[in-house]
């Protein structure tokens, strides 16, 4: 918001709220210096309060995305694994809460070097006098002139108290962690998933987050990611990819002859509702990343960009599925909507709405192709998490460069880089590379380490019976189990030759890695 507008507002407040004669002065006398000070302080409080309310409400919407993920993932998987999927989605946010509080925030936003934060690491114990914007940020809050003193200076630009910033960033970290749960569903050991999630949110996510939002080397190199196509979605995607590779595909998913056996989800109602919940949650995810209400124009631009990309993503995926696969597969349409949302997450404050629509459309097409691609290379992703978050996280990050608009970057994001589109694109590409290398590499090590130490996959018997019984000792739908659930994918449809003649509790197609006991 322009400084002159706010000064004008302050003046208007002074002259309207204080009627003539209010303090005993006559109609012509201006307010005293003391009165002006109290008005400005009141204005500042009001402003900070408004911004805080916006940040917290947006954070609540992002928190609500956990419900969306739970519904989508459980809907796209089999009934016998529902409890396990719900449990993973539920507990992962609790884990994120603790690990981001304990260490993650400090590593991400603490002052440090270009790689990670080193100060105020533990439990937000570092000094901080937020909100304190100082003279550099007059445009955000001209009432606040206190200079920032503290160790979380990378995020001092947002005019809200420390706990508000923390809560907002926490729900973002939680989103990254829950992305992983979809890709590893139906065969991951619950305990291993818990351990991995702690490490992801306490260490991995904050390090790459520091590079981009915490004042680290990518930020200094002009890499931009407004709401987290890279910071959140690609990071979740890379971690998920590493997990899927170490874990192997579900039993019966791929036949020996190279055939792909579909394993249909058990509840499309749940999946659809879940995507709508996520769509709504994204209205907090993207516009909330301004972390300030401003004069409303920035958040309005961003929310429209967010919505249009979701819409064109759904349409693009529907068209692609209809053309390539002969039918408009609902699960693809749902993935397409999410793909558009993920793709627009980075560029939403840097590009026009028209380009936002285009970014979403391309995302929708990409996600369908990616789902088919991953199946073809024998990477089993039950819910399309890799296609949605990894592929489109990268696409959105690159699209920021391709469609970068300097005026919008200034007016909406407030984060202009003065680079040309091509230069920005190259910088984005560099960021994609480094984040991918680090996250994928470290995740591979962690997953592999967990596999060696404790095992990350359930036994074949448990996988066939269902993780609900094996991991949790209960069923999601007692007294109501479809028979087809307890046999392999393919057993009630044309089975691959290897499966014929096998007892239903036996082992089917050979997975990439032998299942761990």
């Amino acid at each position, binding site marked *: 918001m322009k400084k002159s507008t706010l000064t004008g507002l302050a003046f208007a407040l002074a002259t309207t709220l204080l009627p003539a004669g209010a303090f005993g002065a006559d109609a012509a006398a201006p307010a005293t210096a003391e009165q002006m000070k109290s008005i400005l302080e009141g204005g500042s409080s009001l402003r900070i309060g408004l911004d805080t309310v916006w940040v917290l409400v947006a954070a609540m919407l992002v928190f609500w995305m956990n419900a969306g993920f739970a519904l989508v993932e459980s809907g796209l998987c089999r009934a016998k694994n529902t409890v396990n999927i719900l449990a993973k989605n539920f507990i992962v946010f609790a884990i994120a809460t603790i690990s981001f509080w304990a260490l993650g925030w400090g590593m991400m936003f603490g002052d440090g070097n270009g790689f990670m934060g080193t100060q105020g690491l533990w439990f937000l114990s570092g000094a901080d006098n937020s909100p304190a914007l100082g003279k550099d940020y007059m445009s955000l809050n001209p009432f606040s002139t206190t200079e920032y003193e503290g160790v979380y200076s990378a995020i001092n630009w947002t005019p809200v108290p420390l706990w508000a910033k923390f809560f907002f960033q926490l729900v973002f970290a939680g989103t990254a962690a829950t992305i992983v749960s979809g890709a590893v569903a139906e065969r991951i050991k619950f305990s291993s998933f818990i351990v991995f999630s702690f490490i992801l949110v306490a260490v991995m996510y904050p390090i790459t987050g520091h590079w981009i939002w915490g004042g680290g080397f990518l930020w200094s190199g002009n890499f931009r990611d407004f709401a987290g196509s890279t910071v959140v979605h690609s990071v979740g995607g890379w971690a998920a990819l590493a997990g899927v590779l170490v874990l192997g595909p579900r039993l019966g998913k791929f036949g020996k002859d190279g055939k792909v*056996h579909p394993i249909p989800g058990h509840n499309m109602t749940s999946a659809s509702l879940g995507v709508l919940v996520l769509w709504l949650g994204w209205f907090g995810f993207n516009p909330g990343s301004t972390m300030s209400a401003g004069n409303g124009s920035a958040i309005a631009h961003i929310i429209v960009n967010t919505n249009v990309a979701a819409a064109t993503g759904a349409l693009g995926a529907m068209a692609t599925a209809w053309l390539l696969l002969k039918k408009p*597969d609902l699960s*693809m349409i749902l993935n397409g909507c999410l793909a558009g949302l993920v793709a627009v997450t980075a560029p939403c404050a840097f590009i026009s709405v028209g380009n936002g629509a285009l970014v979403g459309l391309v995302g929708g097409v990409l996600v369908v192709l990616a789902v*088919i691609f991953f*199946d073809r290379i024998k990477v089993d992703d039950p819910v399309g998490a890799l296609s949605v978050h990894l592929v489109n996280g990268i696409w959105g990050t690159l699209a920021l460069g391709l469609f970068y608009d300097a005026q919008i970057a200034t007016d909406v994001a407030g984060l202009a880089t003065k680079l040309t589109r091509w230069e920005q694109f190259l910088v984005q590409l560099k960021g994609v590379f480094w984040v991918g290398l680090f996250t994928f590499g470290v995740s591979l090590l962690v997953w592999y380490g967990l596999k060696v130490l404790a095992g990350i996959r359930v036994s074949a018997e448990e996988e066939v019976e269902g993780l609900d019984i094996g991991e949790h000792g209960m069923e999601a739908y007692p007294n109501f189990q479809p028979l087809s659930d307890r046999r392999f994918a393919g057993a*009630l*449809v*044309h089975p691959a030759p290897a499966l014929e003649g096998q007892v239903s509790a036996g082992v089917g197609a050979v997975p990439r890695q032998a299942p761990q006991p």
Partner: protein
Amino acid sequence: MAPPEPALNNDAEGGARNERMKKIEAIVKPFKLEEVRDALGEVGINGMTVTEVKGFGRQRGHTEIYRGSEYTVDFLPKVKVELVVSDGRVDDAVNIIVRSARTGKIGDGKVFVSTIEEAVRIRTDEKGELAV
């Protein structure tokens, strides 16, 4: 000499010593169930047990596609109707079922008849024909 007519109504001794009861199992298309039930009810055959099953005979399945992979579904939903009737009513019952379940298209189903050794009504201990 013609075989004796089986006694259809109660006799003093009751029991299944002379009469056989027969079990009829009919696999029919699910949407035909009401018609079969109503047709049997019109001639006074009112008890039956119904199960939802999957199966196929000569009827081919159909192809579905999920997230880019095609598969054929061979097992089609059917309904199995089981009822036990006294020997004298079997032919009637079978004919009624066949006529009411028929659509003329492949997949109409089949009817099987087998012999039942004994039947008991749980509420009253009645045995044999009195129980069906």
